[in-house]
């Protein structure tokens, strides 16, 4: 299809949308609404949340796009978890090995750190979890 298929008679006429244009406009609106619903619905979107499970505080899902610090109580005392810049980590723990702190920042879906002595675990959630379950 070349120029001959599309007539241009006047400047005013040039801005009159064709039925095809209107279809494109409608599709665009649907696309944009769909994109907002998909990526902006829920807190933080997919892969942007972490599940924190603790024996004393139960299960909570936290968004990783809000920087904050959480203090969770466990059998040994308080563990402190930091969320910053889409990542999450243990920063303080009353356990002796401090393995949970050495695990460092977690950000990709399926990453996991736990303080077993204090019975607190963090799992980064996402649409494509790398592992269905962690054996430890």
């Amino acid at each position, binding site marked *: *299809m*070349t*120029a001959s*298929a*599309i007539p*241009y008679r*006047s*400047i005013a*006429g*040039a*801005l*009159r*949308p*064709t*039925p*095809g*244009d209107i*279809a*494109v*406009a409608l599709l*665009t609106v649907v*696309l*944009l609404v769909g*994109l*907002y619903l998909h*990526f*902006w619905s829920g807190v*933080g*979107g*997919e*892969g*942007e949340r972490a599940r924190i499970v603790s024996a004393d505080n139960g299960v909570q899902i936290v968004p990783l*796009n809000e920087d904050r610090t959480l203090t969770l109580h466990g059998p040994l005392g308080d563990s402190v978890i930091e969320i910053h810049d*889409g990542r999450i980590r243990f920063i303080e723990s009353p356990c002796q090995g401090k393995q949970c702190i050495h695990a460092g920042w977690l*950000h990709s*879906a399926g990453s996991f750190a736990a303080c077993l002595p204090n019975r607190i675990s963090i799992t980064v959630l*996402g649409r494509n979890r790398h592992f269905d379950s962690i054996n430890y």
Partner: protein
Amino acid sequence: MNPTEPSEASSPIIVMTTRDDHRIAWLAALAIVIHVAEAAIPSPMPGVKPGLANVITVAVFIEFGWRTAAWVSLLRVLVGSLVIGSFLTPGFALSLTGAAVSVAVLGLIRLWPGPSLSPLGVCMLSSLSHMAGQFSAAYLLFIPHPGMLTLLPVLMTLAAVFGLVSGVITSLLLASLHGRVANSE
């Protein structure tokens, strides 16, 4: 204006050029100028540009067909990046993917048997596909961070706005061109 003059003056090698080649070269040059000028405009976010070079690509597509538009688009990205100094940088890869996807969509529009589109619709699709291509390159190649995805709706909205603006400009440009051609006949 003699279109053969530049090539003869700048190069000792004589290349047989067709009318098509010259047309592509001139239109690409125009697109490159816009491309480079746009690169100078400060942008709130990388990858967000009004995309006025799109006007040239779409106008060429409507006036001279898909092949010419594809050449103009490719030349614009290649030469434009050489001029700005972004050749083979991530920014270049993004521009190239955006242009490639947008040209591919123009190809699909050409094959589309349904109701015809005015420059408004063509520019909208071209702009959206350019952004989609650019974004997927950025996400898949450079920053596969899920946080990127939350930007996508905003970027696509901006692409739709700029698509509409370039559509209006393209329509007016083509209409006035045709008006002038009609008057001169």
